[in-house]
């Protein structure tokens, strides 16, 4: 039996950042990771001579030396910024659809100007929309993690109150009439995995404005470098990371966590356990429903997992300039109707809309000289993939990949003729590696009812149990997951009296 101050189950970004904060604050921590690599989705894979990023394309919250975002502040606090350098994209995205080819720059003013230049008749609505997005973001940041009363919210922060309860469509369709303008301004819905009618307006406002303000960043050495940097920070602070080492049970006695039993029958005693696994697995497999209050199980059972992803990873035997790749993030839309782009029951049809990320644009060293790497990503509904029979799985993957490559080749004709390596992944792949239900990539779906205000709380229903990662407040994606781990660590430090309440609040400022 070994004693720790905290055991972290799962070395995803939420687990790593909470472990890093706890270890650097002097706690003895052990991180258990079932996979042989740290990072969860923040990892890469290799197919000679290309290294592909599994998930990361657009990192928010980094900014520039004069203007740093929240993520940078958190990473700097943990010492991760000493280990990783970041590249920034020149502009935000390109949006291609029938009758539309729009480039969105970074920066609030530039973005509004570009939108108004493209759709002058929508000037008023677009200006109001942009104002709404930023006002919601500023109001949320101004609360500094505090929960105001309903009356205060309605009187002092009407736009925020509205955004907390509403989907993006309510603002987007109200302010903008031209479907092309709606698409141009609502394009990054797929960064959240839900079309406007179902996507939280609060989450879109905060995410969209963060990208506009702090730009799109990408770490040198890919997302694996980010995960490895966390590991270095944890180990330097005396923490332990055990890979290929899964938790079997989170041990609970008399309503409090007592430690973790691993798959290798190792008993780790600890008063604090951070679950950086999907909470359904944590509750039912690791803790056991008998150890949890009924209301918590009910809470879990009403939430839905987010979409998964269908990805085509392409290693290309030509320089990006020879392929005509000039934009980093390119959205392909088969229709102007945003809600048509991801029907709630899409069936197993090849995706019409997807994102192309041309990594060599943001990172010239991404692949060997004379080659490039492009990833095509489409949202994919995990429950649909659960119906696939193993015999047809490979055929289906091939059919989807061919469809997306053909669509991408309409804009970049040379692409097709330079495919050297082709790898596809599905929600099944995601579940295989992460155990996430439905191959979810953003934790719980980013609906209004799962926005940061209502999302699963970091303090679990059992004393000493905490959650971190995409399933927890504030939400899915790289920046929210890392922030989630940081906030969870602050909550633990506060609960254990290591830091005062005021300090925890100051440190978590703006993270809601």
């Amino acid at each position: 039996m070994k004693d720790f101050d905290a055991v972290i189950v799962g070395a995803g970004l939420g687990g790593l950042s909470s472990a890093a904060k706890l270890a650097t604050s002097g706690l003895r921590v052990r991180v258990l990771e079932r996979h042989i690599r740290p990072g969860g989705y923040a990892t890469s894979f290799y197919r000679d001579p290309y290294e592909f990023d599994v998930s990361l394309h657009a990192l928010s919250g980094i900014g520039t030396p004069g203007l740093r975002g929240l993520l940078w502040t958190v990473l700097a606090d943990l010492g991760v910024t000493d280990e990783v350098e970041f590249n920034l994209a020149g502009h935000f995205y390109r949006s291609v659809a029938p009758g539309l080819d729009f480039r969105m720059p970074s920066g609030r003013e530039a973005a509004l100007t570009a939108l108004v230049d493209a759709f002058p008749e929508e000037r008023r609505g677009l200006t109001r929309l942009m104002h709404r997005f930023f006002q919601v973001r500023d109001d949320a940041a101004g609360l500094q993690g505090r929960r105001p009363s309903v009356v205060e919210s309605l009187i002092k922060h009407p736009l925020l109150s509205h955004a907390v309860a509403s989907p993006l469509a309510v603002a987007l369709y109200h302010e903008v009439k031209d479907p092309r303008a709606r698409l141009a301004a609502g394009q990054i819905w797929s960064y959240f995995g839900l079309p406007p009618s179902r996507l939280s307006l609060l989450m879109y406002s905060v995410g969209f404005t963060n990208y506009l303000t702090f730009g799109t960043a990408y770490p040198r050495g890919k997302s694996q470098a980010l995960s490895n940097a966390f590991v270095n920070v944890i180990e330097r602070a005396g923490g332990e990371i055990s890979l290929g080492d899964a938790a079997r049970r989170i041990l609970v006695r008399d309503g409090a966590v007592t430690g973790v039993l691993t798959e290798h029958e190792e008993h780790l005693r600890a008063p604090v356990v951070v679950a950086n696994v999907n909470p359904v697995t944590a509750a039912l497999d690791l803790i056991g429903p008998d150890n949890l209050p009924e209301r918590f199980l009910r809470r879990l059972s009403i939430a839905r997992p987010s979409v998964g992803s269908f990805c085509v990873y392409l290693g290309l035997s030509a320089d990006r300039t020879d392929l005509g790749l000039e934009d980093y993030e390119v959205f392909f839309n088969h229709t102007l109707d945003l809600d048509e782009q991801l029907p709630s029951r899409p069936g197993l049809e090849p995706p019409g809309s997807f994102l192309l990320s041309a990594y060599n644009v943001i990172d010239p060293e991404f692949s060997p000289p004379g080659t490039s790497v492009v990833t095509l990503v489409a949202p994919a509904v995990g429950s649909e993939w659960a119906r696939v029979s193993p015999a047809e799985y490979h055929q289906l993957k091939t059919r989807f990949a061919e469809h997306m490559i053909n669509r991408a080749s309409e804009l970049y004709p040379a692409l097709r003729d330079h495919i050297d390596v082709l790898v596809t992944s599905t929600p099944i792949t995601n579940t295989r590696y992460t155990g996430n239900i439905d191959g979810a990539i953003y934790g719980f779906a980013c609906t209004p009812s799962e926005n940061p205000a209502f999302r699963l709380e970091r303090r679990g229903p059992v004393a000493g149990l905490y959650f971190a990662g995409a399933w927890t407040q504030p939400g899915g994606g790289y920046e929210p997951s890392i922030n989630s781990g940081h906030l969870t660590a602050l909550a633990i430090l506060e609960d254990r009296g290591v830091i005062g309440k005021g300090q925890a609040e100051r440190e978590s400022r703006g993270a809601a």
Partner: protein
Amino acid sequence: MKLRDYWTLFADAPTVARTIGTWRAAPALVGDSRALGGQLGAVARHIHPTRLRVRLSGRRWETDDTVTLTLTPIDCPLPAFLPGQYVNVFVSVGGVHTSRPLSISSSPSRRGMIDLTVKRKPLGFVSPHLTDVVEVGDTLTITGAEGDFHFHPARDTDDLVLIAGGVGITPFMGMIEHLLEARPQTHMLLIYGSSDADRIIFAQRLARLAAEHPDRLAVVHVIERPRLGWLGETGLIDARMLQRLIGSGDLGRKTFFLCGPHAMMVAVQGMLADMGVARRRVRQDCSAVRTDVVGAPGWPPEVDPLDRFTVRIPNRGVVLEVMAGENLMSSLERGGVLTPAICRVGTCGSCLTRLIEGQAYVPPEVAVRRADREAGYIHTCTTYPLSDMVLRPPFEASRRSRSLAAGTI
């Protein structure tokens, strides 16, 4: 702001009710510990099993030193595979638990069983066990199907040149059978080098297929040491022979697949490059990593392959002696330390190990991710010790009974 907008908060109400219903009716959907990842987790484990128990239901000598093992399922179905992929086979030889990746030599069109074809190496450790010791009725443990050495319609052309050497024919057998049946637009030329005419593996099957599909499959045997009366190609595959056999057609429309001994792969790759074939049109099996590292580029000349070093593994409480000339994975297995293994040639990444202290040699053709290199990770299967070491390997996958994560995408 309109009051009615607040109702959107409850827009998901029907889903909520449905989910609660599902929860009550079938907690196993998420509640069974074997159902990690929910329903999709079960599908994932079916398609990508970490470990699978199979029965050896048939064995057939192909030549005097090569045998085909037929495997059938015991308690769960065999994994779906693409022709050209391999499985890793776990065996216990002389008390040492180890494994060897073997190409699947049957076609996926034949359901319910898979064939593995293995050649006995004269001084081999595992291959004689598989060719001569295991018996029909024995139980074997394998991984799911892995590897990228397969035809991909979105990437490859339909005019294929398959170049095999010796037992390197195995991945091609299933590929040829499957493509002939499932993809009528493909044309294949198989150039197959064997040491002598008696050592041609699958000779009759290939002859029959070529006779049945004269316009779609041509088979050319190249015999290194022909007996009197052999009328076909002789010697080793060389550039002139390749050029003559492939003909003057449009080279840019052909896709080449290579599988054979390391030296042959390197030589043929060079010939194809000289002929102007684009690198991306040449696919090679991942067994192209050398196993004889002494004298390979970068090998320190002062180190003898028999030099012995000590490896400490603190998280297992183990200290063992290893040899410079043997890869760390095999040395660890001899010492009873099991680590996850699938490809054993440095590509799958499942044996990723932290090198905490010590010097190591890695052959130049083995690729390690930049972030891993900088963070001090090695693949034990393709790393050779050059000093005493401290290692932290991951635990072996079979002990992680609920594990999904071991393998490649």
